């Protein structure tokens, strides 16, 4: 393996002066003067995980971060750090962040299209060492020590999957990378594939070695154009470097990869449906057992791992299973990437050690609530997950804890909600997603989901009775128990968890015909507060259904029977005279 650049300098203006480019040029110029242009690559990055710290410069390898860098510091950084590997102490920034980047470590830091960058950051080191020194059993044992569990949501111990596949004698075995990321708002896998595709490929090769597979597929959704392009390049480069193909790095081990594109059906993220899709069949889940590790793709033993899981594998081999196991909590080891979004100040991808509390994530990493509103709940696990209320935010995040609360870890979606979010509306949103994405194979999910959505619509329109909640719960329970795959078993989670923690809100919708978050349009009423009204008539002129009548002498009134609750009057009134309840 040849080395690429010796050092990579990452630049980002974390303030708002927009001077990144200026500093980029300054660094470039100085490096040229010092004749370092072939050894040092300078990269402007979009996100460096820090905020309000002026110009931030990070130098890898070595993980040195400087904050508040000025023009005057450039010369010193080049002389001391780039040339002599010594840190400039007065600029050093130690991140107090509770994040811990393992999988995302190189994302946004190295050039994902350049294998040399990956190699410069110890890439393919794990593979090289493994081929030279380890047996397949050693690899599986190392994973066992690490305690790594599937990051796609199921949380099944990765080493066990591998071991099952390894034990079966077969003329052909397969490794599949599940990159059919489909949860709304989740983009962990895409970021890894776009930012550090070699780590996934290395993970797949290692998996192939461990289970005795010679062929792998990256199943990625067709919408991920950039990720696909980068994986393609990665495979090409890896082949050039002898890391894929026959006799990898001169060993007896051969392994190659192909890309398969998914057409965007959510259910194809379910492993048996994914296999059917690769086989060219309709993406229908099939019953397990047999599990794919016994009888998978084309009937052969197949290991399916999620992108994040595979990207974690090389690090574990490099740093040791024990190191990985030292991170995290009792039941869940290592780190997990979450896509933090919603009503939180700093949304984005975060990577945290397992066992961190939701409160830490929202307030310490996410920077707290947007617009100073009060936090109401956090939704985890995407459409299959549940809502966790404020009073339970101190729960340490791991697979079992989240499940106990009626949610799941899922692939790592995390949405923060405040008082403006209506829990019926939230449940409806997620359920609608699952109903749309149900494959239609099994009755509890296909019909149950549709009927559940009907009840939620009824509730949010103020047409439901209290009995309807019982019927809704009844279907939820049946779908959970009787559905074939994870989609149907978990799609009731958003409904059940909101019913569990926010039942009052449901009852308000039913009994009082009120939506406290003012999200359910059908439950809103509009009227004019006469004391604030200046009788300008703008509301009357804008009402699309002529529901507002009156004149400047007598004032204006909204006819509630005519009103279609479009909110136009509310929006156009300059004096806050329209009252919406």
């Amino acid at each position, binding site marked *: 393996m040849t080395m690429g650049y010796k050092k990579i300098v990452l630049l980002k203006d974390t303030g708002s002066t927009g001077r990144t480019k200026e500093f980029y040029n300054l660094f470039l110029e100085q490096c040229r003067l010092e004749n370092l242009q072939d050894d040092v690559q300078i990269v402007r990055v979009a996100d460096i995980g820090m905020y309000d710290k002026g110009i931030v410069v990070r130098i890898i390898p070595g993980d040195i971060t400087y904050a508040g860098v000025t023009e005057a510091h450039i010369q010193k950084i080049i002389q001391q750090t780039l040339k002599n590997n010594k840190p400039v102490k007065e600029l050093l920034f130690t991140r107090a962040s509770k994040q811990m980047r393992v999988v995302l470590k190189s994302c946004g830091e190295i050039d994902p299209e350049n294998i040399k960058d990956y190699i410069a950051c110890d890439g393919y080191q794990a593979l090289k060492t493994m081929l030279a020194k380890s047996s397949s059993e050693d690899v599986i044992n190392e994973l066992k020590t690490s305690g790594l569990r599937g990051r796609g949501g199921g949380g099944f111990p990765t080493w066990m999957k591998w071991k099952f596949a390894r034990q079966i004698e077969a003329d052909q075995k397969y490794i599949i990378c599940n990159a059919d990321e489909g949860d709304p708002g989740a983009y962990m896998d895409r970021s890894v594939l776009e930012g550090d595709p070699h780590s996934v490929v290395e993970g797949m090769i290692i998996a192939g070695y461990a289970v005795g597979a010679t062929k792998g597929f990256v199943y990625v959704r067709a919408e991920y154009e950039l990720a696909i392009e980068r994986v393609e390049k990665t495979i090409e480069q890896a082949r050039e470097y002898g890391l894929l193909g026959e006799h990898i790095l001169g060993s007896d081990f051969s392994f190659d990869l192909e890309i398969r594109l998914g057409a965007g059906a959510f259910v194809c993220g379910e492993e048996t449906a994914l296999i059917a899709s690769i086989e060219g069949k309709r993406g229908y889940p099939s019953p397990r057992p047999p599990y794919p590790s016994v009888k998978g793709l084309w009937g052969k033993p197949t290991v399916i791992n999620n992108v994040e899981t595979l990207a974690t594998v090389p690090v574990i081999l490099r740093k040791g299973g024990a190191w990985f196991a030292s991170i995290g909590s009792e039941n869940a080891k290592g780190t997990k990437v979450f896509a933090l979004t919603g009503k939180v100040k700093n949304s984005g991808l975060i990577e945290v050690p397992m066992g961190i509390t939701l409160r830490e994530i929202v307030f310490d990493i996410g920077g707290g609530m947007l617009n100073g509103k009060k936090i109401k709940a956090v939704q985890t696990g995407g459409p299959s997950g549940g809502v966790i209320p404020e009073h339970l935010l101190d729960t340490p995040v791991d697979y079992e804890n989240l499940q106990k609360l009626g949610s799941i870890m899922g692939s790592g979606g995390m949405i923060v909600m405040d008082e403006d979010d209506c829990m019926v509306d939230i449940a409806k949103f997620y359920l609608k997603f699952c109903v749309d994405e149900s494959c239609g*194979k099994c009755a509890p999910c296909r019909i149950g989901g549709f009927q559940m959505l009907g009840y939620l619509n009824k509730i949010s329109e103020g047409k439901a009775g209290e009995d309807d909640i019982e019927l809704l719960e009844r279907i939820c329970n*049946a779908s959970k128990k009787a559905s074939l795959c994870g989609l149907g078993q978990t799609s009731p989670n958003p409904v059940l968890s909101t019913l569990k923690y926010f039942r009052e809100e449901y009852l308000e919708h039913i009994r009082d015909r009120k939506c406290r978050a003012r999200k359910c349009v059908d439950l809103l009423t509009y009227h004019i507060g006469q004391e604030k009204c200046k009788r300008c008539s703008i509301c009357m002129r804008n009402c699309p259904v002529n529901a507002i009548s009156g004149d400047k002498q007598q004032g204006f009134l909204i006819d509630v029977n005519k009103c279609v609750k479009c909110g136009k009057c509310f929006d156009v009134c300059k004096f806050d005279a329209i009252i919406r309840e």
Partner: protein
Amino acid sequence: MIQAKINGIDIKVKEGTSILDAAKKVNINIPTLCKHPDLDATAACGICIVKVKGGNKMLRSCCTPLEKGMDIITHDDELQEARRTVIQLILSNHPNDCLQCARNNNCELQRLAADFGIRTVAFPHVAKELPQDSSSKTINLVPDKCILCGRCVQVCQQMQDVWALSFLERGFQTRISPAGDINLSESPCVRCGQCSAHCPTGAIAEFDQTPEVWKALYDPNKYCVVQIAPAVRVAIGEAFGYPEGANLTGKLYAALRRLGFKAVFDTSFAADLTVMEEAAEFVQRFAHGKGVLPLITSCCPAWVDFMEKFYPDMVKHFSSAKSPHEMLGVLSKTYYAQQNAIDPATIYMVSIMPCTAKKYEIQRSEEMYASGYPDINVSLTTRELARMIKQSGIDFMHLPEAQPDHVLGEYTGAGVIFGATGGVMEAALRTAHYMVTGTDADKVDFENVRGLKGVKETEVNIKGNKIKIAIAHGLENVEYVLRRVQKAIAEKTELPYHFIEVMACPGGCVGGGGQPYGATDKLRVARAHGLYKEDDDKELQYSHHNPYIKKVYKEFLEKPLSEKSHKLLHTHYTGRPLYKK
């Protein structure tokens, strides 16, 4: 062997036995809507859930093998409640118009709802409102009634290898339809009707032509005659509460007379005639080198259609002899009409067949009008006849037996075994032996050609000539046989077979797509046994010994393969490849 417990009962079963099947062994019926003994579990309905004592997850008993030490609970509050909910969900999306349904009183969904005492459906009714498809005039598709169990798709794609039916759309919109959303008549459908025989509800049924037959029977200007196929006599009893495989030939004749048919014929007579023609054809090809080998039987219309569509290169291998039912049709309007001085234009010929494809066969080509009229006017399935008998108030159980009409109703044991897989071959071999050697074979039974093995291959020795034969039933089994032939022809190597029998339906005609519902291998064996028993009981077991066959040749047809028999009893085939490279 696996030792476990089901509902506290100790049980020992073979490894790999599903919980559903294991439970049956200790007299526990776990309800299911989608699992069929002929087919692999698809796990679509969600009714057969069970749980393991102490576990919280539900298992689908149809597809989960019983494991050592499992303590299974099949019925308790929670399971019954979930099942009841799923049944109600299915009913909420089903027309529930049982009284007007083809499967009224014979529907698996109806039975389940009745067993569960469903008196009300708690959830709102959501109709599907999909159009019916009667375009094939053989099989009626009523997608509204479909519960998406997937049996028909499995039957069509796996068991029959036709791939006419598939799932379209997804989620709540999922439905069954020919791929590409075309009509069944435009699809690759070969009209075998196995989909209808496996459908648990009224979503797929035979194209009901009883109204036409009633009309003809009540028409004083029509001379209605009827013929019954061998397989009908051993299956119709199931509709009247007879034990499996009961042979009710005499009662059938009597019932048909009472329905108003002026003459009752037996297709088995024409089967004897087919044997004469086909055996002669075989001897000509085998012993005299006139025409190509192997000779392939052509009495199954679904098979003929399948071959024309999927194996057009095999057309010249087909026996040009028409199917028995067509031969009888043409004789009824020529020979019988002449003998009895009846105007053939007034003769209305109805055939009672175990088959839906016969409805198609009667209009297959202009050769099906060899008499100058439609040789067969209407072909009814066993199921349709059973309904007609019930409608007409005939006490079938207590009806005295009757005789068929002379000449066209007289048959040998060789003619009646046509209804079971291997029967045509066996009957033809008995006569071919005679045609080659001039003497009858010492042994009547060719046991190697009997039974339900998908492909049966054997050798028969006739006067030092080894005749290699193959018998396939269930269209999935055709590929193996024909590929071998194609390969030998292409490579100019020795032919693997000289004579091949193919029946589209598993078990042959006894398992036909128009037979009473609920066929399983056990039932197919019982029905076939009913036919073999009649063969044994018959004084004459060779077609060439049938005195009335001799008479018809003498008086009318001259000899096998004569010019006249060619004109009336033979046909030809046209390759109509569906897919071109």
